[in-house]
């Protein structure tokens, strides 16, 4: 259950953004997550309130966007959808593919409340 550790890292980043923008609170957090990141969305939703409690994101809502698994075939050069344990090219069947989407674990965006106006955003 490493999702709690991941959520604690997320809260650390979100807190930094809130601090540098002098925000009173964070209302929404948007995260992109690919199945091959090794992180489970539902487990992350469960762990999030524990990590967020008592922080600037204590009342924030976590929005998870699941990313598709896609590969680029090094053999035929085409792209295709792929599965967790089947990353072969669906066009030519070759296994020499490169993952182009599906292992993301990315903090995309946060919505801050009562941010001080006119503050430089350096995130």
């Amino acid at each position, binding site marked *: 259950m490493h999702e709690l550790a991941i959520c604690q*890292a997320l809260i*650390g980043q979100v807190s930094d953004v809130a601090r540098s923008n002098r925000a009173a609170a964070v209302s929404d957090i948007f995260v992109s997550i690919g199945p091959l990141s090794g992180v489970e969305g539902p487990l992350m939703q469960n762990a999030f309130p524990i990590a967020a409690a008592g922080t600037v994101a204590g009342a924030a809502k976590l929005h998870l966007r699941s990313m598709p698994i896609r590969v680029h075939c090094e053999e035929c050069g085409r792209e295709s959808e792929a599965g967790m344990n089947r990353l072969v090219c669906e066009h030519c069947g070759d296994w020499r593919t490169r993952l182009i989407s599906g292992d993301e674990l990315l903090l995309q965006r946060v919505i*801050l*409340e009562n*941010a001080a106006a006119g503050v*430089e955003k350096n995130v």
Partner: protein
Amino acid sequence: MCDTCGCNVTPGNEHLVAAGGRFAHTSSGAESVEVLKGLLDANDRQALHNREYFKRHSVFAVNLMSSPGAGKTALLEATIDALGADLNIAVVEGDLETENDANRIRDKGVPAIQISTGSACHLDAHMVHNALHELSLDGIDVVFIENVGNLVCPASFDLGQHCNVALLSTPEGHDKPAKYPVMFRAADVVLITKSDLLEVLGDFDPDAAESYLRQIANPAPLYNVSARTGDGMTTWLEWLRREVGRQR
């Protein structure tokens, strides 16, 4: 069109509502800020630092990962027996509890630092960094980081290693790469351990294990090894020597 889901933002006006844009502040005083950072950014930065530290000491660092009981410590003992005279080895051991594995390594005359993770199911770059404070890398050629026995969580955390070596022991079954694709996708080498049991078990097919590994688009070599009998150890040791040579 609405003000909540972003459907009113078009390529033509998005610069106005993006962080820092004229309309970035909504009527409620809320503000949207783009971040675009990996969630493991802090870990990855520490891992980079660890990697630079290894490089400065010309040390080759290996992250050993497998399920509990696949034979990581036995592999290390056999590797030390074979190479201990030629290469200076150090080991960082990760376990939830006990110094047992570190003691097994120390019995071979090799320095070992035990990280007790408590309830944590994986090592992270900060834990390894702290362990390295207790370990002198002067004259060391290779550091093995024996991760917590777990085929799930360790795969998500970069420690600053140069290579990931995943062990798949024959009693576990040859379809482990299909069951744990995140772990086996990260492997630079897969060792099929306890190969002396292949004959007894009868149902572990090394070719099928390789096929499952290719299905997840991993070109890593697979070597059959038995730490107990020594069979196949030569190929693994050759690989290790070659990689150590590259870091010098």
